[in-house]
Protein backbone atom coordinates (compact mmCIF):
# COMPACT_ATOMS: atom_id res chain seq x y z
CA UNK A 1 0.00 0.00 0.00
CA UNK A 2 1.41 3.38 -0.94
CA UNK A 3 2.12 6.23 1.42
CA UNK A 4 -0.70 8.21 -0.18
CA UNK A 5 -3.29 5.53 0.48
CA UNK A 6 -2.28 5.42 4.12
CA UNK A 7 -3.72 8.92 4.45
CA UNK A 8 -7.08 7.14 4.54
CA UNK A 9 -7.43 4.85 7.52
CA UNK A 10 -7.79 1.08 7.13
CA UNK A 11 -11.19 -0.44 7.71
CA UNK A 12 -12.01 -3.63 9.55
CA UNK A 13 -15.00 -4.92 7.57
CA UNK A 14 -16.58 -3.37 4.52
CA UNK A 15 -15.73 -2.13 1.03
CA UNK A 16 -12.88 -0.09 -0.38
CA UNK A 17 -13.65 1.47 -3.76
CA UNK A 18 -10.31 2.41 -5.24
CA UNK A 19 -9.19 3.99 -8.51
CA UNK A 20 -12.25 6.19 -8.78
CA UNK A 21 -11.75 8.95 -11.35
CA UNK A 22 -10.56 12.08 -9.55
CA UNK A 23 -13.45 14.19 -8.28
CA UNK A 24 -16.10 11.45 -8.46
CA UNK A 25 -16.03 10.35 -4.82
CA UNK A 26 -19.06 12.38 -3.80
CA UNK A 27 -21.03 10.94 -6.71
CA UNK A 28 -20.03 7.47 -5.54
CA UNK A 29 -21.43 8.31 -2.11
CA UNK A 30 -24.63 9.51 -3.78
CA UNK A 31 -24.96 6.19 -5.60
CA UNK A 32 -24.51 4.39 -2.31
CA UNK A 33 -27.11 6.73 -0.81
CA UNK A 34 -24.66 7.83 1.86
CA UNK A 35 -25.09 11.41 3.01
CA UNK A 36 -23.82 11.09 6.56
CA UNK A 37 -27.24 11.08 8.20
CA UNK A 38 -27.30 7.29 8.47
CA UNK A 39 -24.31 7.16 10.77
CA UNK A 40 -22.13 5.19 8.33
CA UNK A 41 -18.40 5.24 8.99
CA UNK A 42 -16.88 6.48 5.74
CA UNK A 43 -13.39 7.58 4.75
CA UNK A 44 -12.75 9.51 1.56
CA UNK A 45 -9.59 10.39 -0.29
CA UNK A 46 -9.96 12.84 -3.16
CA UNK A 47 -7.51 13.67 -5.92
CA UNK A 48 -4.69 11.63 -4.42
CA UNK A 49 -1.80 10.80 -6.79
CA UNK A 50 -2.18 7.58 -8.78
CA UNK A 51 0.24 5.87 -11.15
CA UNK A 52 -2.65 4.59 -13.27
CA UNK A 53 -5.01 7.55 -13.27
CA UNK A 54 -2.83 10.52 -12.40
CA UNK A 55 -5.33 11.56 -9.74
CA UNK A 56 -7.84 9.29 -8.14
CA UNK A 57 -10.42 9.17 -5.38
CA UNK A 58 -10.86 6.43 -2.77
CA UNK A 59 -13.96 5.64 -0.73
CA UNK A 60 -13.90 3.25 2.22
CA UNK A 61 -17.19 2.21 3.75
CA UNK A 62 -17.11 0.39 7.08
CA UNK A 63 -19.55 -2.45 7.61
CA UNK A 64 -21.10 -2.59 4.18
CA UNK A 65 -20.66 -4.70 1.06
CA UNK A 66 -22.08 -3.38 -2.20
CA UNK A 67 -25.06 -4.81 -4.03
CA UNK A 68 -24.81 -5.70 -7.73
CA UNK A 69 -27.10 -2.78 -8.61
CA UNK A 70 -24.78 -0.38 -6.84
CA UNK A 71 -21.75 -1.87 -8.56
CA UNK A 72 -23.48 -1.58 -11.95
CA UNK A 73 -24.14 2.11 -11.52
CA UNK A 74 -20.69 2.75 -10.13
CA UNK A 75 -19.27 1.34 -13.33
CA UNK A 76 -20.95 4.12 -15.31
CA UNK A 77 -19.18 6.95 -13.53
CA UNK A 78 -16.02 5.18 -12.37
CA UNK A 79 -15.23 2.54 -14.99
CA UNK A 80 -11.64 2.19 -13.80
CA UNK A 81 -12.59 1.57 -10.18
CA UNK A 82 -11.67 -1.54 -8.23
CA UNK A 83 -13.80 -3.02 -5.48
CA UNK A 84 -12.04 -4.51 -2.48
CA UNK A 85 -14.09 -6.45 0.03
CA UNK A 86 -12.44 -6.31 3.45
CA UNK A 87 -13.08 -8.71 6.32
CA UNK A 88 -11.15 -8.46 9.57
CA UNK A 89 -8.68 -6.04 7.94
CA UNK A 90 -7.86 -8.43 5.08
CA UNK A 91 -8.89 -7.96 1.44
CA UNK A 92 -10.84 -11.16 0.73
CA UNK A 93 -12.09 -10.22 -2.75
CA UNK A 94 -10.81 -7.73 -5.27
CA UNK A 95 -12.27 -7.09 -8.70
CA UNK A 96 -12.55 -4.50 -11.44
CA UNK A 97 -15.93 -3.13 -12.36
CA UNK A 98 -17.68 -4.48 -15.44
CA UNK A 99 -20.13 -2.31 -17.30
CA UNK A 100 -23.57 -3.94 -17.41
CA UNK A 101 -25.67 -4.06 -20.57
CA UNK A 102 -28.49 -2.22 -18.81
CA UNK A 103 -29.28 -0.40 -15.57
CA UNK A 104 -32.81 -0.30 -14.19
CA UNK A 105 -34.38 2.02 -11.67
CA UNK A 106 -31.28 3.99 -10.72
CA UNK A 107 -31.10 6.86 -13.22
CA UNK A 108 -33.74 9.46 -14.07
CA UNK A 109 -34.17 10.31 -17.73
CA UNK A 110 -33.22 13.95 -18.39
CA UNK A 111 -35.92 14.22 -21.07
CA UNK A 112 -38.84 15.74 -19.20
CA UNK A 113 -41.21 14.48 -21.88
CA UNK A 114 -40.13 10.86 -21.45
CA UNK A 115 -42.88 8.51 -20.27
CA UNK A 116 -40.50 7.13 -17.63
CA UNK A 117 -40.57 10.49 -15.85
CA UNK A 118 -44.36 10.46 -15.67
CA UNK A 119 -46.39 8.93 -12.88
CA UNK A 120 -46.47 5.44 -14.39
CA UNK A 121 -45.71 2.10 -12.68
CA UNK A 122 -42.41 1.58 -14.50
CA UNK A 123 -38.76 1.81 -13.54
CA UNK A 124 -36.38 3.86 -15.62
CA UNK A 125 -34.30 1.65 -17.88
CA UNK A 126 -31.06 2.62 -19.62
CA UNK A 127 -28.95 0.67 -22.07
CA UNK A 128 -25.25 1.12 -21.40
CA UNK A 129 -23.35 2.31 -24.49
CA UNK A 130 -19.57 2.31 -24.87
CA UNK A 131 -19.55 6.06 -24.15
CA UNK A 132 -22.77 6.78 -22.28
CA UNK A 133 -26.26 5.55 -21.56
CA UNK A 134 -29.48 5.51 -23.56
CA UNK A 135 -33.02 5.62 -22.21
CA UNK A 136 -34.89 2.51 -23.31
CA UNK A 137 -38.16 4.46 -23.48
CA UNK A 138 -37.47 7.78 -25.21
CA UNK A 139 -34.03 6.78 -26.57
CA UNK A 140 -32.31 9.91 -25.28
CA UNK A 141 -28.54 9.40 -25.21
CA UNK A 142 -26.55 10.87 -22.34
CA UNK A 143 -22.78 11.00 -22.52
CA UNK A 144 -21.92 13.71 -20.02
CA UNK A 145 -23.42 14.39 -16.62
CA UNK A 146 -24.51 10.83 -15.87
CA UNK A 147 -23.98 11.36 -12.11
CA UNK A 148 -26.62 14.09 -12.26
CA UNK A 149 -29.16 11.47 -13.34
CA UNK A 150 -28.71 9.27 -10.30
CA UNK A 151 -32.01 9.13 -8.43
CA UNK A 152 -30.46 9.84 -5.07
CA UNK A 153 -28.01 12.49 -6.34
Amino acid at each position, binding site marked *: MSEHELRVSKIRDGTVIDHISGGQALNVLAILDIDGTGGEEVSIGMNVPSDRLGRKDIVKVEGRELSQDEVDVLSLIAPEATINIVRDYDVVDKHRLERPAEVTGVLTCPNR*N*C*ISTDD*EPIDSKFAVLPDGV*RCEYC*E*TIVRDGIPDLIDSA
Partner: protein
Amino acid sequence: MRHDHLVTAKQLSRADIETVLDRAAEIDADPGAFRDRHAGALLGLLFFEPSTRTKMSFEAAIKRLGGDVVDMGSVESSSVKKGESLADTVRVIEGYADALVLRHPRQGAAKMTGEYVDVPLLNAGDGAGHHPTQTLLDLYTIRENAGLDDLTIGIMGDLKYGRTVHSLAHALTNFDAHQHFISPESLKLPRSVRYDLHEAGASVREHTELETVLSDLDVLYVTRIQRERFPDENEYHAIAGEYQVDADTLAAAKDDLTVMHPLPRVDEIAADVDDTDHATYFEQAHNGVPVRMALLDLLLGDSA
Protein backbone atom coordinates in the same frame (compact mmCIF):
# COMPACT_ATOMS: atom_id res chain seq x y z
CA MET B 1 -44.55 -10.31 -41.08
CA ARG B 2 -45.56 -11.07 -37.52
CA HIS B 3 -44.81 -8.53 -34.81
CA ASP B 4 -46.85 -8.29 -31.66
CA HIS B 5 -46.53 -4.52 -31.65
CA LEU B 6 -45.32 -1.85 -34.02
CA VAL B 7 -43.61 0.71 -31.79
CA THR B 8 -40.79 1.97 -33.97
CA ALA B 9 -39.73 1.72 -37.58
CA LYS B 10 -36.47 0.24 -36.33
CA GLN B 11 -38.34 -3.04 -35.86
CA LEU B 12 -39.06 -3.29 -39.57
CA SER B 13 -36.80 -5.25 -41.88
CA ARG B 14 -36.80 -4.67 -45.59
CA ALA B 15 -38.87 -7.84 -45.98
CA ASP B 16 -41.41 -6.57 -43.42
CA ILE B 17 -41.75 -3.28 -45.24
CA GLU B 18 -42.13 -4.91 -48.62
CA THR B 19 -44.75 -7.28 -47.25
CA VAL B 20 -46.87 -4.34 -46.05
CA LEU B 21 -46.37 -2.31 -49.21
CA ASP B 22 -47.15 -5.29 -51.47
CA ARG B 23 -50.32 -5.97 -49.52
CA ALA B 24 -51.27 -2.28 -49.78
CA ALA B 25 -50.76 -2.48 -53.54
CA GLU B 26 -53.08 -5.51 -53.67
CA ILE B 27 -55.69 -3.58 -51.73
CA ASP B 28 -55.31 -0.56 -54.01
CA ALA B 29 -55.77 -2.77 -57.03
CA ASP B 30 -58.87 -4.58 -55.74
CA PRO B 31 -60.35 -2.99 -52.60
CA GLY B 32 -63.48 -5.13 -52.84
CA ALA B 33 -61.52 -8.32 -52.22
CA PHE B 34 -60.68 -7.11 -48.72
CA ARG B 35 -64.07 -5.69 -47.81
CA ASP B 36 -65.16 -8.19 -45.15
CA ARG B 37 -61.81 -9.72 -44.39
CA HIS B 38 -61.95 -8.69 -40.73
CA ALA B 39 -65.67 -8.52 -40.15
CA GLY B 40 -66.33 -8.16 -36.44
CA ALA B 41 -62.83 -6.99 -35.58
CA LEU B 42 -62.64 -4.06 -33.20
CA LEU B 43 -59.82 -1.54 -33.22
CA GLY B 44 -59.29 0.43 -30.01
CA LEU B 45 -58.40 4.07 -30.64
CA LEU B 46 -56.49 5.73 -27.83
CA PHE B 47 -55.65 9.24 -28.91
CA PHE B 48 -54.25 11.23 -26.02
CA GLU B 49 -53.61 14.24 -28.23
CA PRO B 50 -55.56 15.65 -31.17
CA SER B 51 -55.23 14.01 -34.56
CA THR B 52 -57.38 14.22 -37.64
CA ARG B 53 -55.68 12.39 -40.49
CA THR B 54 -54.09 9.52 -38.58
CA LYS B 55 -57.16 8.79 -36.52
CA MET B 56 -59.60 9.01 -39.44
CA SER B 57 -57.41 6.92 -41.71
CA PHE B 58 -57.20 4.14 -39.11
CA GLU B 59 -60.96 4.34 -38.67
CA ALA B 60 -61.50 4.20 -42.43
CA ALA B 61 -59.04 1.32 -42.75
CA ILE B 62 -60.66 -0.97 -40.19
CA LYS B 63 -64.15 -0.16 -41.46
CA ARG B 64 -63.15 -0.94 -45.04
CA LEU B 65 -61.91 -4.31 -43.75
CA GLY B 66 -65.35 -4.95 -42.26
CA GLY B 67 -64.45 -4.10 -38.68
CA ASP B 68 -65.22 -1.18 -36.40
CA VAL B 69 -63.64 1.00 -33.75
CA VAL B 70 -64.03 1.55 -30.04
CA ASP B 71 -62.83 5.05 -29.35
CA MET B 72 -61.60 6.34 -26.01
CA GLY B 73 -62.72 9.81 -27.06
CA SER B 74 -61.02 12.97 -25.97
CA VAL B 75 -58.77 13.02 -22.93
CA GLU B 76 -61.06 15.60 -21.36
CA SER B 77 -63.97 13.17 -21.36
CA SER B 78 -62.00 10.08 -20.26
CA SER B 79 -60.85 8.62 -16.98
CA VAL B 80 -57.39 9.99 -17.74
CA LYS B 81 -58.79 13.31 -16.65
CA LYS B 82 -59.35 11.72 -13.24
CA GLY B 83 -55.67 10.89 -12.97
CA GLU B 84 -55.64 7.28 -14.19
CA SER B 85 -52.23 6.11 -15.39
CA LEU B 86 -51.68 5.17 -19.03
CA ALA B 87 -50.69 1.68 -17.89
CA ASP B 88 -54.08 1.18 -16.24
CA THR B 89 -56.04 2.69 -19.12
CA VAL B 90 -54.51 0.43 -21.75
CA ARG B 91 -54.84 -2.69 -19.63
CA VAL B 92 -58.57 -2.08 -19.38
CA ILE B 93 -59.16 -1.13 -23.00
CA GLU B 94 -57.20 -4.06 -24.43
CA GLY B 95 -60.06 -6.19 -23.15
CA TYR B 96 -62.44 -4.37 -25.47
CA ALA B 97 -60.51 -4.59 -28.74
CA ASP B 98 -58.55 -6.89 -31.02
CA ALA B 99 -55.81 -4.31 -31.59
CA LEU B 100 -54.95 -0.89 -30.21
CA VAL B 101 -53.76 2.33 -31.82
CA LEU B 102 -52.00 4.75 -29.49
CA ARG B 103 -51.20 8.43 -30.01
CA HIS B 104 -49.61 10.01 -26.97
CA PRO B 105 -47.73 13.25 -26.30
CA ARG B 106 -44.93 11.57 -24.33
CA GLN B 107 -41.92 9.89 -25.91
CA GLY B 108 -41.69 6.21 -25.08
CA ALA B 109 -45.42 5.90 -24.33
CA ALA B 110 -45.88 3.22 -26.99
CA LYS B 111 -42.86 1.27 -25.79
CA MET B 112 -44.26 1.28 -22.26
CA THR B 113 -47.77 0.39 -23.41
CA GLY B 114 -46.38 -2.57 -25.31
CA GLU B 115 -45.12 -3.96 -22.01
CA TYR B 116 -48.66 -4.00 -20.63
CA VAL B 117 -50.87 -5.30 -23.44
CA ASP B 118 -51.10 -8.56 -25.33
CA VAL B 119 -53.20 -7.48 -28.31
CA PRO B 120 -51.27 -5.92 -31.21
CA LEU B 121 -50.36 -2.29 -30.54
CA LEU B 122 -49.70 0.29 -33.22
CA ASN B 123 -47.78 3.43 -32.34
CA ALA B 124 -49.53 6.33 -34.05
CA GLY B 125 -47.05 8.90 -32.72
CA ASP B 126 -45.39 9.29 -29.32
CA GLY B 127 -44.28 12.84 -28.70
CA ALA B 128 -41.16 13.63 -30.67
CA GLY B 129 -40.35 9.91 -30.87
CA HIS B 130 -41.69 7.71 -33.64
CA HIS B 131 -44.56 7.41 -36.11
CA PRO B 132 -43.99 4.12 -37.92
CA THR B 133 -47.35 3.79 -39.66
CA GLN B 134 -46.82 7.21 -41.25
CA THR B 135 -43.48 5.90 -42.44
CA LEU B 136 -45.07 2.91 -44.12
CA LEU B 137 -47.40 5.15 -46.11
CA ASP B 138 -44.46 7.44 -46.89
CA LEU B 139 -42.48 4.49 -48.21
CA TYR B 140 -45.44 3.30 -50.24
CA THR B 141 -45.69 6.73 -51.85
CA ILE B 142 -41.95 6.88 -52.50
CA ARG B 143 -41.95 3.41 -54.04
CA GLU B 144 -44.82 4.36 -56.34
CA ASN B 145 -43.16 7.57 -57.49
CA ALA B 146 -39.40 7.16 -57.31
CA GLY B 147 -38.55 3.62 -56.22
CA LEU B 148 -36.83 2.71 -52.98
CA ASP B 149 -33.39 1.78 -54.22
CA ASP B 150 -30.73 4.08 -55.60
CA LEU B 151 -32.81 6.84 -54.03
CA THR B 152 -31.54 10.29 -53.13
CA ILE B 153 -33.89 11.91 -50.66
CA GLY B 154 -33.81 15.29 -48.95
CA ILE B 155 -35.62 15.56 -45.64
CA MET B 156 -36.14 19.17 -44.62
CA GLY B 157 -37.66 21.11 -41.74
CA ASP B 158 -37.89 20.35 -38.02
CA LEU B 159 -35.73 17.27 -37.83
CA LYS B 160 -35.25 17.48 -34.08
CA TYR B 161 -38.84 17.05 -32.99
CA GLY B 162 -40.27 15.57 -36.19
CA ARG B 163 -41.29 12.03 -35.34
CA THR B 164 -42.23 11.25 -38.95
CA VAL B 165 -38.66 12.14 -39.92
CA HIS B 166 -37.13 9.91 -37.27
CA SER B 167 -39.16 6.89 -38.35
CA LEU B 168 -38.59 7.51 -42.06
CA ALA B 169 -34.83 7.86 -41.56
CA HIS B 170 -34.66 4.56 -39.68
CA ALA B 171 -36.74 2.72 -42.26
CA LEU B 172 -34.70 4.01 -45.19
CA THR B 173 -31.60 2.34 -43.78
CA ASN B 174 -33.07 -0.89 -45.18
CA PHE B 175 -32.69 0.44 -48.71
CA ASP B 176 -29.98 1.85 -50.95
CA ALA B 177 -30.93 5.40 -50.04
CA HIS B 178 -28.76 8.49 -49.72
CA GLN B 179 -30.31 10.68 -47.04
CA HIS B 180 -29.73 14.44 -46.98
CA PHE B 181 -31.05 16.27 -43.93
CA ILE B 182 -31.70 19.98 -44.31
CA SER B 183 -32.52 22.09 -41.27
CA PRO B 184 -31.48 25.04 -39.15
CA GLU B 185 -28.67 24.16 -36.76
CA SER B 186 -31.08 24.33 -33.82
CA LEU B 187 -33.43 21.74 -35.34
CA LYS B 188 -30.93 19.13 -36.51
CA LEU B 189 -31.56 15.41 -36.02
CA PRO B 190 -31.39 14.35 -32.37
CA ARG B 191 -28.32 12.53 -31.15
CA SER B 192 -30.21 9.24 -30.78
CA VAL B 193 -31.31 9.13 -34.44
CA ARG B 194 -27.84 10.06 -35.67
CA TYR B 195 -26.44 7.29 -33.49
CA ASP B 196 -28.80 4.72 -35.02
CA LEU B 197 -28.13 5.87 -38.57
CA HIS B 198 -24.40 5.65 -37.94
CA GLU B 199 -24.78 2.17 -36.42
CA ALA B 200 -26.81 1.09 -39.45
CA GLY B 201 -24.10 2.35 -41.80
CA ALA B 202 -26.54 4.70 -43.52
CA SER B 203 -25.44 7.20 -46.14
CA VAL B 204 -26.25 10.49 -44.44
CA ARG B 205 -25.31 14.13 -44.99
CA GLU B 206 -26.52 17.21 -43.19
CA HIS B 207 -27.06 20.67 -44.67
CA THR B 208 -28.46 24.00 -43.62
CA GLU B 209 -29.50 25.10 -47.14
CA LEU B 210 -31.71 23.26 -49.61
CA GLU B 211 -29.90 24.79 -52.59
CA THR B 212 -26.79 22.77 -51.69
CA VAL B 213 -28.44 19.51 -52.63
CA LEU B 214 -31.77 20.21 -54.37
CA SER B 215 -30.66 19.33 -57.90
CA ASP B 216 -29.54 15.85 -56.79
CA LEU B 217 -32.81 14.84 -55.16
CA ASP B 218 -35.36 12.28 -56.33
CA VAL B 219 -37.60 13.04 -53.33
CA LEU B 220 -37.92 16.14 -51.16
CA TYR B 221 -39.74 15.39 -47.89
CA VAL B 222 -40.75 18.64 -46.17
CA THR B 223 -41.97 18.98 -42.59
CA ARG B 224 -43.33 21.93 -40.70
CA ILE B 225 -41.01 24.06 -38.61
CA GLN B 226 -43.09 24.41 -35.50
CA ARG B 227 -43.57 27.94 -34.28
CA GLU B 228 -44.01 26.80 -30.70
CA ARG B 229 -40.41 25.56 -30.62
CA PHE B 230 -39.11 29.12 -30.77
CA PRO B 231 -39.19 31.39 -27.72
CA ASP B 232 -38.79 34.41 -30.02
CA GLU B 233 -41.35 34.99 -32.80
CA ASN B 234 -38.86 36.98 -34.89
CA GLU B 235 -36.37 34.13 -34.74
CA TYR B 236 -39.06 31.75 -35.98
CA HIS B 237 -39.95 33.97 -38.94
CA ALA B 238 -36.30 34.45 -39.87
CA ILE B 239 -35.64 30.72 -39.92
CA ALA B 240 -38.95 29.47 -41.30
CA GLY B 241 -38.63 31.75 -44.32
CA GLU B 242 -35.41 29.97 -45.27
CA TYR B 243 -37.18 26.63 -45.47
CA GLN B 244 -40.14 27.46 -47.66
CA VAL B 245 -40.53 25.81 -51.03
CA ASP B 246 -42.41 27.34 -53.94
CA ALA B 247 -42.62 26.67 -57.68
CA ASP B 248 -39.67 28.98 -58.34
CA THR B 249 -37.51 27.09 -55.83
CA LEU B 250 -38.22 23.87 -57.68
CA ALA B 251 -37.04 25.24 -61.01
CA ALA B 252 -33.58 24.01 -60.02
CA ALA B 253 -34.85 20.49 -59.24
CA LYS B 254 -35.04 17.40 -61.41
CA ASP B 255 -38.18 17.30 -63.55
CA ASP B 256 -39.34 14.15 -61.80
CA LEU B 257 -38.63 15.32 -58.22
CA THR B 258 -41.34 14.06 -55.86
CA VAL B 259 -42.30 16.56 -53.14
CA MET B 260 -43.86 15.04 -50.02
CA HIS B 261 -45.17 16.33 -46.69
CA PRO B 262 -46.87 14.43 -43.83
CA LEU B 263 -49.40 17.31 -43.52
CA PRO B 264 -50.77 19.51 -42.19
CA ARG B 265 -48.66 22.17 -43.85
CA VAL B 266 -48.70 25.82 -42.91
CA ASP B 267 -46.65 27.80 -45.38
CA GLU B 268 -43.54 25.66 -45.89
CA ILE B 269 -44.88 24.50 -49.27
CA ALA B 270 -46.51 27.30 -51.26
CA ALA B 271 -49.85 26.67 -52.94
CA ASP B 272 -48.28 27.14 -56.37
CA VAL B 273 -46.43 23.84 -55.90
CA ASP B 274 -49.81 22.06 -55.80
CA ASP B 275 -50.24 22.64 -59.53
CA THR B 276 -46.86 21.16 -60.45
CA ASP B 277 -46.10 17.52 -61.22
CA HIS B 278 -43.86 17.51 -58.15
CA ALA B 279 -46.71 17.70 -55.63
CA THR B 280 -47.36 14.28 -54.12
CA TYR B 281 -48.52 15.14 -50.59
CA PHE B 282 -52.22 14.66 -51.14
CA GLU B 283 -51.62 11.31 -52.85
CA GLN B 284 -49.38 10.51 -49.87
CA ALA B 285 -52.22 11.31 -47.44
CA HIS B 286 -54.68 9.18 -49.42
CA ASN B 287 -52.26 6.26 -49.24
CA GLY B 288 -52.79 6.22 -45.47
CA VAL B 289 -55.92 4.10 -45.84
CA PRO B 290 -54.67 1.23 -48.04
CA VAL B 291 -51.37 1.08 -46.15
CA ARG B 292 -53.09 0.98 -42.76
CA MET B 293 -55.55 -1.59 -44.12
CA ALA B 294 -52.58 -3.71 -45.16
CA LEU B 295 -50.90 -3.31 -41.80
CA LEU B 296 -54.06 -4.17 -39.87
CA ASP B 297 -54.74 -7.11 -42.14
CA LEU B 298 -51.27 -8.50 -41.46
CA LEU B 299 -51.28 -7.77 -37.73
CA LEU B 300 -54.76 -9.04 -37.02
CA GLY B 301 -54.07 -12.23 -38.93
CA ASP B 302 -56.39 -14.88 -37.58
CA SER B 303 -56.88 -13.14 -34.22
CA ALA B 304 -59.98 -11.24 -35.26
